[in-house]
């Protein structure tokens, strides 16, 4: 089972320097993505999920530092690579798409030029004619009607949905094995969201892609992800198969998240935990403690253990062994 692991992140720690002090954004994150699997990192804004994605690709802002951990991709530690080696991994083996598709596209280059340039960079032997052919193929693959016409357009002439399709085509042009999708649909309209979701699902099959999905949207996770890691205040607090997470959430934060979604759908539920985000009082004990309703005295004294359950689920909580009444 473990041999088909494509990406393994071990005990990753990232902190941001701010006005002389350093703020821990990710602490001890450990997770894996297997081949042809979609893994989701879910959490609210500020939970550290995007920082993890950026750390994997080593595209963190300048004030961020990876202080600990390893990122193993195809049995190479990405954190040990030179910048030159890393540039080859980016775009070739791992591609990333963002919430705002326009940020992945160069605004002053025509779509056709961007695509052919990328294709030829990864495949210098290919002639320009062949590269244009491949570009058209890719646009067809992401279901852009009238691909030849789109090749001559600039990014600003495309709608959000179209631009996201082009960004995906661009990401796939080098046949990567891992696609990191950071909130790929949240800037899009409802009908277009569904289109892009369908597309990603189809491409996973066509390209035998693995996807690392970064999102706060639970319905996206349910429809796409095989496994989920729930993040809270920089830590992974629960991991499980998507079904298991939904059917038997154990961490009080996961329970809160699921209940909140139910409530938004009109199910009347009283939320057990405090909803408003509260700053963890200290990072050494449980970080969810200020919001938690299930507190016991041990929560205050020692940091919670990451407990593995027989089902394969893991939970960062003292009270993980008991099922939650919902």
């Amino acid at each position, binding site marked *: 089972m473990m041999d088909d692991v494509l990406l393994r992140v071990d005990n990753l720690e990232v902190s941001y320097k701010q006005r002389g002090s350093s703020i821990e954004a990710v602490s001890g994150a450990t997770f894996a993505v297997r081949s042809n699997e979609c893994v989701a990192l879910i959490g609210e804004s500020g939970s550290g999920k995007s920082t993890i994605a950026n750390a994997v690709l080593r595209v963190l802002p300048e004030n961020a530092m990876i202080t600990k951990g390893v990122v193993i991709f195809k049995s190479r530690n990405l954190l040990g690579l030179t910048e030159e080696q890393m540039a080859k991994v980016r775009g070739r083996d791992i591609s990333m798409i963002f919430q705002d598709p326009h940020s992945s596209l160069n605004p002053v280059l025509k779509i056709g030029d961007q695509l052919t340039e990328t294709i030829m960079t990864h495949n210098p032997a290919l002639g320009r004619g062949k590269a244009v052919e491949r570009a058209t193929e890719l646009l067809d693959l992401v279901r852009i009607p009238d691909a030849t016409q789109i090749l001559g357009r600039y990014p600003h002439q495309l709608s959000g949905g179209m631009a996201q399709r082009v960004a995906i085509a661009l990401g796939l042009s080098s046949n990567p094995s891992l696609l990191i999708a950071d909130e790929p649909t949240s800037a899009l309209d409802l009908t277009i969201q569904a289109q892009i979701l369908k597309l990603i699902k189809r491409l996973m099959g066509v390209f035998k892609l693995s996807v690392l999905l970064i999102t706060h949207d639970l319905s996206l996770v349910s*429809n796409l992800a095989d496994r989920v890691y729930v993040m809270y205040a920089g830590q992974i607090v629960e991991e499980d198969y998507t079904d298991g997470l939904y059917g038997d959430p154990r961490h009080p934060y996961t329970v809160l998240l699921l209940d909140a979604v139910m409530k938004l759908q009109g199910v009347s539920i009283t939320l057990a935990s405090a909803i408003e985000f509260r700053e963890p009082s200290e990072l050494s004990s449980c970080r969810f403690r200020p919001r938690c309703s299930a507190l016991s005295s041990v929560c205050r004294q020692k940091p919670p253990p990451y407990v593995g359950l027989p089902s394969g689920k893991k939970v960062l909580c003292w009270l993980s062994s008991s099922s939650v009444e919902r």
Partner: protein
Amino acid sequence: MKENKNALLAVEDVSRYYTVRRRVWRKENVRAVDGVSLKINRGDTNSIVGESGSGKSTLARLMVGLEKPDEGRIRYLAVNLIDLDKKERRRFSREVQMVFQNPYASLNPRKTIKSILSKPFKVHGLEYNDDTLKGLLSRVDLTPPSAYLDKYPHELSGGQRQRVAIARSLALNPKLVVLDEPTSALDVTTKVQILDLLRNLQGEEDLTLVFISHELPFLKPIGGNVSVMYNGKMVEKGTSEEIFSDAYHPYTIGLLNSILEVDPREAKKREIFAVEGETPSPVNPPSGCRFHPRCPLAEPSCSENEPPMISISESHQVACPILMKKLDGKSLDRSSIYAR
């Protein structure tokens, strides 16, 4: 014409055009809102749903008087907004308020919460004191209120800021509050709270709320009346129940079908549904019914004539004659109209 006693705000056949220059020598009109009518009754909750470019935000701005209609009229308590004299205009701006999507942008970062909340009183020359402001804060569940008065917006979370923005809109006891995507910028858990707060306000006497949103699923718990907009046009309006379980416009049905299943076990059983095609540009809208290029039921006549609003019940109207005709009183599985 019979005058509805309860009508607070009436949008009557309103259009709003923007001029864009696509070429140096040529100007074109964007029909952001095109011939839209809507009646907001006192005490009712209304939602307007649509995708980006549907004109919902322009409609919101028209309703609060931030924009003037190019055609048609908007009447507040039966008086056309452009006919309001100076005194009436001040009363209108006191009684009709707006809350914006992004609480990071709508609160001045250099002012304290106290200063932000007292501004409406100062503008209108009304009496207030710290207790008034504290009262506002507790109305939006920011307790203890005294802890918030001297804070700056950056010291608050997104949810708390949106609460302050809502408190400010309530400061002068408005009759109508228009909320443009009030929860879209917030995390799920915070969203629930703001929604709870708004649902409590819904129950308050003499306060009418209008929600503008692109998130159809979240409008369900709000209830009230729902209007669906597409490409500048109103395509369907009705009560929440009528829209969510008895929709007659293929676009509304498409929207409802594309709501994602949240339970992964259910999600596995069903294919992700998507309405194919792009949202058309309002600069160059399709002829006839604007949804016809994406519509599974489109007939040749759909590209020729603009469909009129047809009444299905007193509260329910739809701008599509085709599905009505197809149904002909029989019941039909609405999810099947997109099946090939």
